[in-house]
């Protein structure tokens, strides 16, 4: 079923979550993510708690998730930093939940009302230890709706916290949207109170703590890696817009990819939606191009990882301070192509 309407990005996240069966939301208001909390209050089927801070919010979500509820929280950079430990906990106790991060300019308080893409590496490496979050980053209001559902599905399937990235631009953007539903997945694991389960944040085998056995830890991490990789394979989500005769591939995601569309007649475009784990197909696609350029609203976070994935240097266009200026992008592409950066 699809229907057309005008909707704000943050509201679309809330609606998608409700459609996917959200039952518990705990969060602390923060610009530019607050509308998600505000919208969810309208739905009696969702228990919405405003907590004292983001640390309490993520931990409440872990608890609700272990008790069997589909859980979600939403925040922005400063809150996402506070949630890192809880995200690690959720990986360790295998609690499915969704963390929405509507990115704003950081570090610290930064520019609260301006969008950014500064939290990419934090999604991947923000908590301590080794873990493998699945991360989606849509670029339109319609997609925010759809990928909130996909994120909740992927969380339930992988029994892990899944990150849905947004940014101050698409989060606050209102546009004509078509809401398309996806099939909702349910959790196979029984919640607390059913059968014999024990949860521990210590290294464990099954339910038993094994905090002094290196082999137990090696097995645990291998297990987490395999589990998330298996589920991620069901969500190979990207957009590839090749253009004949182009020797250049532009890589962009989220709000910036919308600006990249302006250049789609001249350059091929690759837009990962599942930005972590990184899309393997990019290796094969990038081989067809002389130049690969990443444009992102940070000082080069995804660029670093694209270089590592492709084993070759790539061009980089930084868009800092919340500004996306097409003239500037055009200039920077020219510079990248003439090899002056």
């Amino acid at each position: 079923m699809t229907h057309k309407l005008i909707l704000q990005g943050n509201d679309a996240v809330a609606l998608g979550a409700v459609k996917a069966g959200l039952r518990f939301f705990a969060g602390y208001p923060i610009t530019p993510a607050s509308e998600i909390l505000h919208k969810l209050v309208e739905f009696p089927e969702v228990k919405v708690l405003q907590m004292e801070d983001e640390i309490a919010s993520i931990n409440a979500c872990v608890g609700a998730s272990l008790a069997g509820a589909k859980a979600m929280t939403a925040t922005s950079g400063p809150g996402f930093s506070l949630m890192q430990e809880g995200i690690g906990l959720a990986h360790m106790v295998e609690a499915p939940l969704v963390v929405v991060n509507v990115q704003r300019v950081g570090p610290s308080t930064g520019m609260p009302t301006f969008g950014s893409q500064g939290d990419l590496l934090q999604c991947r490496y923000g908590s301590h230890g080794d873990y493998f979050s699945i991360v989606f980053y849509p670029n339109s209001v319609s997609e925010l709706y759809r990928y909130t559902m996909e994120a909740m599905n992927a969380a339930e399937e992988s029994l892990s916290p899944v990150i849905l990235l947004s940014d101050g631009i698409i989060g606050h953007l209102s546009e004509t949207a078509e809401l398309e539903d996806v099939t909702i997945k349910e959790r196979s694991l029984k919640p607390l109170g059913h059968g014999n389960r024990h949860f521990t944040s210590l290294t464990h085998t099954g339910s038993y703590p094994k905090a002094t056995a290196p082999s137990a830890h090696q097995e645990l991490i291998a297990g987490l890696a395999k589990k998330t990789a298996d589920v991620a394979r069901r969500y190979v989500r990207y957009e590839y817009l090749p253009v004949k005769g182009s020797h250049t591939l532009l890589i962009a995601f989220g709000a910036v990819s919308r600006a990249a569309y302006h250049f789609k007649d001249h350059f091929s475009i690759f837009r990962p939606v599942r930005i972590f784990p990184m899309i393997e197909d990019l290796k094969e696609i990038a081989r067809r191009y002389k130049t690969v350029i990443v444009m992102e609203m940070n000082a080069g976070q995804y660029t670093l990882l694209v270089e590592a994935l492709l084993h070759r240097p790539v061009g980089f266009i930084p868009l800092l301070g919340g500004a996306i200026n097409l003239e500037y992008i055009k200039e920077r592409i020219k510079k990248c192509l003439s090899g002056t950066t």
Partner: protein
Amino acid sequence: MAEERIIIAGFGGQGIMFMGKLLCYAGMMEDRHVTYMPSYGAEVRGGTAYCNVIISSEEIPSPVVSDPTAAIIMNMPSLAKFEAAVVKKGLMVVNSSLVTRAAKRKDIELIPVPATSIADRLGNTRVANMVALGGFLAKRAVVDIATVTAAIQEILPASRSHLIEVNRQAIAEGKIYVEAHSSAAIWSKLTRGFGFA
């Protein structure tokens, strides 16, 4: 018209966001592709606030407007901020009640509308935004005025329904003002005066 990229700017409390939302909603009612993106500081009132609106017959790539085809400027700081950004031959509607300096650009169409004074005359200074919007629509019929007035009813919360009428009136007054002061209208008045028509 393929695509109109509009920046609406003023200070917080002038109803800048409402203008953007309204245009956007009216565009949707006319089955166009629309985007609306607000930009403001941490303050609710005061501070500079602006929004980007795109209305297009095709799918809209970036909702961020860096080269507006039209701007509605509601106060002085906004003129300084956006005057240079408007494309050549673009349109700039200026609230001449609050913007007292002349625009520097000579290569754009400049339409001064004393929006705040007209709103005061209507008994509600807060509808200056709708006067300016009416003036804008007189020049660029991106959406029908009838659609915009219908959209007001849709997006004003029920508790504000008593304000629908004055908002509609304000749009009409803005349109009338611009039409009466456009060069074509003056020319036709003049020629009538000389007995040509």
